[in-house]
């Protein structure tokens, strides 16, 4: 029976119409006329009215749909819009309120009138109470309806058309009222926001507002009063008409005005009561009145009445306040339940209804079009009002109509909006289409739908554009997804996926509080430092320093200077950069240079010291041009006698003197030892080398090709070797006065070693055995390159002792010196490189043993000489006066013995024998009986024999002159020197020199003839005082005469002849 919520909404739309209508009414004139005309359109029968109402009912549905679409969109703007609207609608509302007041008045009148019918009311009261509750404030609408009904009644009374107009008008008014309601509702909400939720507030506000409006409206009311009176005139007519029916109506009319002012501020409750009562009254009236009109009409009116009436009531309820809400809701619910069926039926086919309506209206097309026109004009008015606002159109529920045919301004607006929407859609689409294609699509669709509602003509464009992009995109993505899906399904059959175990990427344990504290604050004002109590233990590994190691050796007893050695210099040599020096070449150069310089210095000194020279002059013999004295005035040579002198055959200026143990102590460290001095006769100021030997040296010799080795035989039967090249550092040296002297110990000694083969008796002679001339020549071609090896070491040493044992030694040079000494070569000096190896031994005793000399005892061998031309042959002088001839290979030689001219055994020692150095196969032999024999190798007997040249004194020394083949020098024991020149005299010496008072102890001859003009012949004479003189013989004996050798040869041949008669004595030397 009562309207629901839907109804309410519907009615709001109608309210707009009402408002417009009111506008029109106010503006009066043409529109009013038009409306009147419109009303005439509805001059259809009263059956049409029902249909029209149905038509009207359709509207709400459409409207509801419409609004649903908008609500979502417009909510954001709603508030603002409403504010605007509120201002605009104040006017309309005012008008409406006036209307309401009028109605009140009417109602009041009716009520007053109804009072008379209290009983009637009482009768209906009980059933109506529920109504009251549910439809609390319907009275307004009821009033209106009542009025309408009155109008209708009046129309009925008049013409049909007129009634129609009224109906139309009534409809419009209803709509307007609904609209007003909605506006009011909105305003109320806003006010609620403004004034808070106070329950009283709304009512007060409303009351206040109405009053206010009324005050303002007072002047206008006059006009309206007029209008009202116009209306009222109709009403009066109706009233009159009703008066015709009953008198109470006139009373009511009369009272209506009267009460108008009285009940201006009546409370709503009363209003309602009035209306209720009025309603009932009017209903009854209606029934009475419209009994003719037929049942359906009555029903329609009722329906009509119910609809707006309920709406009106709701309006009032709202104005009362929230406290009524619950009730109203209930009423609505009931109303809805009641109304659903018809509403639904109507809603199902709204279009049809519309059609029907239009068909019906077709009867008068002009009117219909006019009607529409009128409507649009109304809307135009509305739009004009709303033009200022952008959102008005959107908000306006009438936009449905607008969409159908839009005014240009509205179109523009919509276009702009669409543009904006499209732009935004595009933007959103660009951004999100990839990620959210579906969503965006949905949005697009929604938008397009909305657009379609607003302006269907435009939506297709938007829709197509959007749909195309999204559709293609969707298709692409779908196909891709499909492909991926097939791929994945294929692959998943081939592979196995599994869950890996959980990898711990980071496990950072929480830091405990103390550590945190230390981390944050522990570093402040602190410094890490290490303190060590015992500094030694900082690191155990380096508690001790590096151990310095040095390899040393020592020797006991430490007799020489070199008792210890080792690598003590290594560190130094390591540290210093050794310059690249060709040491051998430098040393050889220095040696030579030193010699030269030394000689020059010596000569200078001699010239500076005339005294020295004088003494030398004094000492020179008459056989000599000049002489010099070797400086034997050295500390270590004091009181020593010279045992023997020897001159090198190769280096003629080198002379060695053997000094005996001193008679009385003079230089303690060397007193027990024998000294050997190697002199250079050009440097008489001092010996070149000083050698020491433990035992008494009986004989000595130099190495044959270079005088760097000195061999000596001792009385103990040992052979010792000095290597003169040795570094002086390995030898003992003694600092004497201003200079230091190095005393060299033997490099090698056979003492105590090789006992099986060594000599057991005193050595008598030691001789170098040079290789033969032929072999010498062959050496040139030998692979040996260094001359040292070629010439120096390719020789043997033959040592002969008294017992007739001839030992042959091989001289071996070690490749490297060993400072530590050799374990195998015990006779070798540490650091020495020369050693002797026993080669062979020749027992001369057997060959010398003769039957006839058995009683003489064992033969003593005294001297040995090797043939210069053939070193395999040697001759040995014996103490029996004959000279034995032997070979090293035990080959038989033709003259086994060289015998003196005297037959028979005689105890004559052959002291010295000497081969001629000029290649002649002759040798001289000096005998202890003073006889001198000249032997030829091929003959047993001597070529010549001089028995009395020394007057019986023994021959101590005999030597061929190295410069003249026919000259030889002889020294006898009586300290005399004889010079023999066979070319000059073969009977005796050509010169005799007595060395006195300083007795001559030893003599040697040296000389050189190779140098042109530099040849000399010097006699080294050792005196008993220890002095050694060098006497340069006069030129007559020094320089060889022309063709001297051939002359000597002839002489010897003669001698051969004379030798055939040995017993006759020597014949006079051949003279040419």
């Amino acid at each position, binding site marked *: 029976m009562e309207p629901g919520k839907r109804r309410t909404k519907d009615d709001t739309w109608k309210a707009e119409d009402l408002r417009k209508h009111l506008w029109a009414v106010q503006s009066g004139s043409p529109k009013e006329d038009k409306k009147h005309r419109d009303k005439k359109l509805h001059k259809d029968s009263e059956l049409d009215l029902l249909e029209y109402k149905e038509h009207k009912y359709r509207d709400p549905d459409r409207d509801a749909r419409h609004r649903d679409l908008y609500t979502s969109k417009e909510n954001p703007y709603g508030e603002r819009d409403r504010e605007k609207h509120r201002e605009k609608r104040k006017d309309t509302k005012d008008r409406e309120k006036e209307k309401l007041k009028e109605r009140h008045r009417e109602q009041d009148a009716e009520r007053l009138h109804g009072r008379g019918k209290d009983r009637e009311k009482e009768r209906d009261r009980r059933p109506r109470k529920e109504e009251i509750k549910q439809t609390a404030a319907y009275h307004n609408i009821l009033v209106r309806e009542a009025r309408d009904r009155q109008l209708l009644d009046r129309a009925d009374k008049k013409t049909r058309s007129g009634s129609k107009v009224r109906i139309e008008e009534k409809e419009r008014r209803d709509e307007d009222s609904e609209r007003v309601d909605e506006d009011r509702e909105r305003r109320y909400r806003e006010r609620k926001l403004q004034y808070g939720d106070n329950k009283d507030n709304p009512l007060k506000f409303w009351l206040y507002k109405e009053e206010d409006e009324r005050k303002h409206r007072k002047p206008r009311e006059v006009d309206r009063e007029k209008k009202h009176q116009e209306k009222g005139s109709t009403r009066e007519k109706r009233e009159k008409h009703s008066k015709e029916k009953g008198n109470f109506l006139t009373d009511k009319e009369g009272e209506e005005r009267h009460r108008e002012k009285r009940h201006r501020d009546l409370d709503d409750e009363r209003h309602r009561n009035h209306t209720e009562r009025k309603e009932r009254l009017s209903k009854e009236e209606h029934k009475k009145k419209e009994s003719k009109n037929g049942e359906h009409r009555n029903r329609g009116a009722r329906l009509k009445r119910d609809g707006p009436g309920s709406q009106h009531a709701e309006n009032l309820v709202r104005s009362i306040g929230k406290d009524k809400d619950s009730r109203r809701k209930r009423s609505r619910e009931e109303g809805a339940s009641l109304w659903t069926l018809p509403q639904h039926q109507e809603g199902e086919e709204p279009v049809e209804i519309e059609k029907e309506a239009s068909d019906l209206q077709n009867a008068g097309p002009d009117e219909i079009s006019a009607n529409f026109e009128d409507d649009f004009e109304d809307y135009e008015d509305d739009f004009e009002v709303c033009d200022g606002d952008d959102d008005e159109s959107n908000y306006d529920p009438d936009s449905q109509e607008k969409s159908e045919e839009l005014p240009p301004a509205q179109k523009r607006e919509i276009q702009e909006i669409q543009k904006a929407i499209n732009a935004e859609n595009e933007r959103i689409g660009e951004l999100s289409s990839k990620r959210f294609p579906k969503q965006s699509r949905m949005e697009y669709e929604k938008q397009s739908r909305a657009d379609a509602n607003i302006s269907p003509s435009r939506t297709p464009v938007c829709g197509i554009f959007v749909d195309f992009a999204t559709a293609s995109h969707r298709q692409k993505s779908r196909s891709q997804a499909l492909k991926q899906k097939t791929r994945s399904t294929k692959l998943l059959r081939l592979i196995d996926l599994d869950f890996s175990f959980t990898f711990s990427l980071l496990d*950072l*344990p929480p830091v405990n509080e103390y550590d945190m504290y230390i981390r944050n604050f522990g570093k402040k004002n602190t410094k890490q430092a290490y303190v060590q109590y015992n500094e030694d233990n900082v690191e155990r590994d380096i508690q001790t320093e590096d151990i310095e190691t040095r390899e040393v050796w020592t020797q006991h007893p430490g007799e020489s200077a070199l008792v210890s050695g080792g690598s003590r210099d290594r560190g130094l040599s390591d540290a210093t950069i050794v310059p690249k020096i060709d040491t051998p070449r430098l040393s050889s150069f220095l040696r030579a240079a030193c010699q030269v310089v030394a000689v020059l210095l010596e000569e200078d000194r001699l010239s500076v010291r005339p005294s020295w020279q004088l003494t030398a002059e004094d000492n020179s013999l008459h056989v000599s041009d000049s002489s010099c004295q070797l400086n034997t005035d050295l500390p270590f040579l004091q009181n020593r006698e010279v045992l023997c002198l020897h001159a090198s055959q190769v280096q003629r200026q080198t002379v060695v003197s053997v000094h005996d143990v001193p008679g009385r102590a003079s230089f303690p460290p060397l007193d027990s030892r024998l000294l050997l001095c190697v002199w250079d006769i050009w440097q008489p100021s001092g010996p070149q080398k000083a050698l020491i030997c433990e035992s008494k040296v009986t004989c000595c010799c130099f190495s044959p090709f270079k005088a760097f080795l000195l061999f000596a035989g001792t009385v103990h039967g040992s052979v010792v070797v000095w290597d003169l090249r040795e570094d002086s550092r390995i030898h003992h040296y003694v600092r004497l006065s201003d200079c230091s002297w190095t005393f060299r110990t033997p490099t090698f000694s056979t003492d105590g070693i090789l006992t099986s083969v060594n000599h057991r008796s005193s050595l008598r002679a030691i001789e170098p055995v040079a290789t033969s001339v032929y072999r010498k020549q062959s050496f040139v071609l030998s692979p040996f390159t260094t001359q040292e090896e070629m010439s120096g070491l390719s020789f043997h040493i033959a040592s002969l002792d008294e017992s007739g044992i001839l030992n042959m030694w091989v001289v071996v040079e070690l490749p490297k010196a060993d400072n530590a000494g050799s374990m195998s070569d015990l006779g070798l000096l540490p650091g020495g490189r020369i050693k002797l190896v026993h080669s062979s031994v020749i027992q001369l005793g057997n060959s010398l043993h003769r039957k006839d000399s058995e009683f003489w005892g064992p033969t003593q061998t005294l001297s040995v000489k090797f043939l210069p031309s053939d070193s395999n042959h040697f001759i040995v002088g014996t103490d029996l006066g004959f000279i034995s001839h032997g070979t090293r290979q035990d080959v038989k030689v033709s003259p086994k013995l060289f015998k003196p001219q005297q037959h028979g055994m005689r105890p004559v020692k052959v002291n010295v024998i000497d081969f001629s150095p000029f290649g002649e196969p002759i040798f001289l032999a000096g005998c202890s009986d003073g006889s001198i024999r000249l032997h030829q190798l091929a003959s047993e007997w001597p070529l010549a024999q001089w028995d009395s040249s020394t007057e019986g004194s023994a021959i101590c020394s005999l030597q061929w002159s190295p410069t003249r083949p026919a000259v030889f020098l002889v020294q006898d024991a009586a300290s005399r020197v004889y010079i023999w020149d066979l070319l000059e005299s073969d009977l005796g010496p050509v010169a005799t020199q007595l060395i006195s008072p300083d007795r001559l102890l030893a003599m040697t001859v040296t000389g050189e003839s190779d140098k042109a003009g530099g040849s000399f012949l010097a006699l080294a004479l050792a005196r008993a005082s220890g002095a050694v003189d060098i006497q340069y013989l006069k030129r007559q004996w020094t320089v060889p005469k022309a063709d001297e050798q051939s002359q000597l040869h002839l002489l010897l041949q003669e001698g051969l002849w004379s030798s055939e008669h040995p017993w006759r004595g020597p014949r006079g030397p051949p003279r040419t």
Partner: protein
Amino acid sequence: MASRPSFVVGTSLSLSDGAPEAEKNAAESENTYILRPIFQQRFRPSVVKDCIHAVLKEELTNAEYSPEEMPQLTKHLSETVKDKLKGMGFDRYKMVVQVLIGEQRGEGVFMAARCFWDADTDNYIHDVFMNDSLFCVVAAFGCFYY
């Protein structure tokens, strides 16, 4: 000291080439699946670790934690590592590089990862860099694209 730890995570994802042609011709021609990577192009954790370590050492040696800069830094790091890995010739591999930088404040942190993958072809490696103010975890996952 009591505030909650702050981490910044940056992830970089890359797809190596190799996939497209398979899709192009999938319909007509034979499939181009490769079920196992070429041995030389296998994801080798040791090599990757060296790479990551080098990057971290270069970038973070003197780095200080600051909440404002870390997001960019993580992104930068992950991009750098990813770019480097892409240049190392792991063909048909998808690389996921995750970088986490957190502040060193003494809190305990536990971070773990779990993968659903083909253990024969896929692999991962991570490296942790720490200094006084921050710690950085870089995890690189290599997933083979069959």
